[in-house]
């Protein structure tokens, strides 16, 4: 594991969010930062605001007055194209309207970096990433004919090719069996342990996965951060009872 450097990749302060025509806030007074080389998990029950929080990080949602900095740049001060070079978001599942070959889907990750022509360098980056994710055999298969787990891998590969500083993962393990859950989390771990300047923010609802792979955990409850620290200090009996409404030894928690 690379040594955690004291550089903030992501810095969030003063973040509150509510939907139009609905005064009840989904997120309120969120403040945290993610350091280089860190994997931060966002834990919380359904509706706690995990996805909303992630989507505020790359302007899919636009909270008012929030101060969000990635690589010391305010995300509202740069164009969407520039932003997509800093952060890439992996949604829970990708529904396709018009399908493409897996190679071309992953190539979309290079889109922020190319104007029109695909260079050999871009192609090699895509090929290498496909190999890294065991997707070589799928390179020229249609994306919509893959299984859920394989698609997930393709979209993660696309995000990697985008070479951002910050990865956002929205429930990357929700559609997967146990073996694949561990594999995906291991890959995310490898991504941030890489020498390059990288960090990941991962929304999960599986406490075990969070405890095993995350450096720090954000515990979200009713749109507020209840705890933000290393897994050991966050996953206390009291926190669990409050935020998950179950006891530690309860099988539901494990």
């Amino acid at each position, binding site marked *: 594991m690379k040594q955690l450097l004291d550089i903030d990749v992501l810095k969030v302060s003063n973040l509150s969010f509510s939907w139009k025509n609905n005064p009840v806030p989904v997120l309120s007074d969120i403040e945290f930062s993610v350091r280089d080389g860190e994997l931060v998990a966002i834990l919380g029950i359904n509706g706690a605001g995990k996805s909303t929080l992630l989507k505020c990080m790359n302007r899919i949602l636009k909270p008012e007055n929030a101060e969000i900095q990635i690589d010391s740049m305010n995300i509202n001060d740069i164009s*969407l194209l*520039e932003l*997509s070079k800093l952060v890439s978001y992996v949604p829970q599942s990708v529904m396709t309207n018009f399908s493409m070959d897996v190679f071309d889907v992953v190539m979309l990750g290079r889109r922020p970096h190319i104007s029109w022509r695909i260079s050999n360098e871009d192609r090699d980056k895509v090929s290498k990433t496909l190999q890294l994710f065991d997707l070589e055999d799928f390179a020229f298969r249609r994306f919509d004919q893959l299984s859920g787990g394989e698609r997930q891998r393709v979209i993660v590969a696309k995000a990697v090719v985008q070479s951002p500083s910050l990865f956002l993962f929205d429930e990357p393990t929700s559609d997967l069996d146990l073996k694949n859950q561990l594999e995906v989390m291991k890959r995310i771990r490898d991504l941030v342990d890489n020498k390059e300047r990288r960090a990941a923010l991962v929304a999960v609802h599986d406490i075990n996965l969070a405890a095993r792979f995350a450096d720090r955990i954000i515990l979200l409850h009713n749109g507020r951060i209840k705890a933000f620290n290393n897994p050991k200090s966050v996953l206390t009996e009291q926190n669990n009872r409050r935020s998950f409404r179950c006891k530690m030894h309860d099988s539901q928690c494990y």
Partner: protein
Amino acid sequence: MESISEKHVLKGKNQILFIIILTISTLALSLFSMGFGSSSQLDMFSTMKIIFDFEQYSCLIVPFSGEFPCNGDYQSRIVWELRFPRILMGVTAGVALATAGALMQGCLGNPLVSPLTLGVASGAALGAALAIVLNFSFFPISELAIVANAFLFSLIVVAIIIQLGNMRSITAESYILVGIAITFITGAIVSTMQYFATDAQLSQLAHWSFGSLSRPDLSNALWITLAIIWLMPRSIRWSWDLNTLSLSGDEFAISTGVDPVTTRRNILIISALMTSIVIAFTGLIGFVGLAAPHMSRLLIGNDYRKLIPCSAVFGALLVVFADTVGRTLFAPIVIPVGIMLSVIGGPFFMYLLLNNRGRAH
């Protein structure tokens, strides 16, 4: 074994080769089709001889006298005044409608969309009906009154689309639903007018809606073609954004650096303009805008950098082919191209779709 990168390069080259072959076939078919007609049959070489006879261009110097071809005989007059404008209009209509269809399907993320979906054509139909039935036209005296009115009313729909696009919360679905609403509203007004129209007006209106390539003369056809040539690069430049938008909707687009709302608005304006320019002159030609992009997708995939040129050429090929068959099958009766396109294109489209489904499994 070759690497994945090399395979990808090869695939791209094959796609470009396919587009080139398709383009050559379309040009050949156009020349061939120019030889067909009720007055005389020419082979391809005689047609080429007429077109590349440079002496007839000698009077095209400024100031232009309005005479063209300059010193052509009977045969070259037939080619230049009747067949060439028709074929040129066919090629341009095919290119414009197929491109508009590909753009709209991509940026709205919906395979059911065609250039007629947004209501541009319904606007044109309303304009035409007003001109025919009520003699109401913004361009009162000229043989182009119907066309000009159709164009103007389709531009009103384009203006509505632009207004929609300026709303930040507009989604792909809202565009489609507004388009359908416009179609219903204009349809109701046109039906009301039909109810009170005379037999002659009814038949004229029906004729307009069949879709035909015979209306524009040489200068009309050239102007339309120039307009479409001007718009084509403006549509192709959105290719990468369309690749991103068409794969999986707005959130995916944003995380890849594409602003879906602005991009969608700009693309829709271009495609609506393309549609209205063509539809005003030809009447309702719908099928090519739906089918040509899908056929091209089945043949070369969904990379818009290649899909737009491929759809454009495929659209031209389909329209010229359908028109040629329509002119010759029951000659001297000419079956309108809109009808022929659906009759020939429909089964071909179904064949390609079903054949491809079968291979996938």
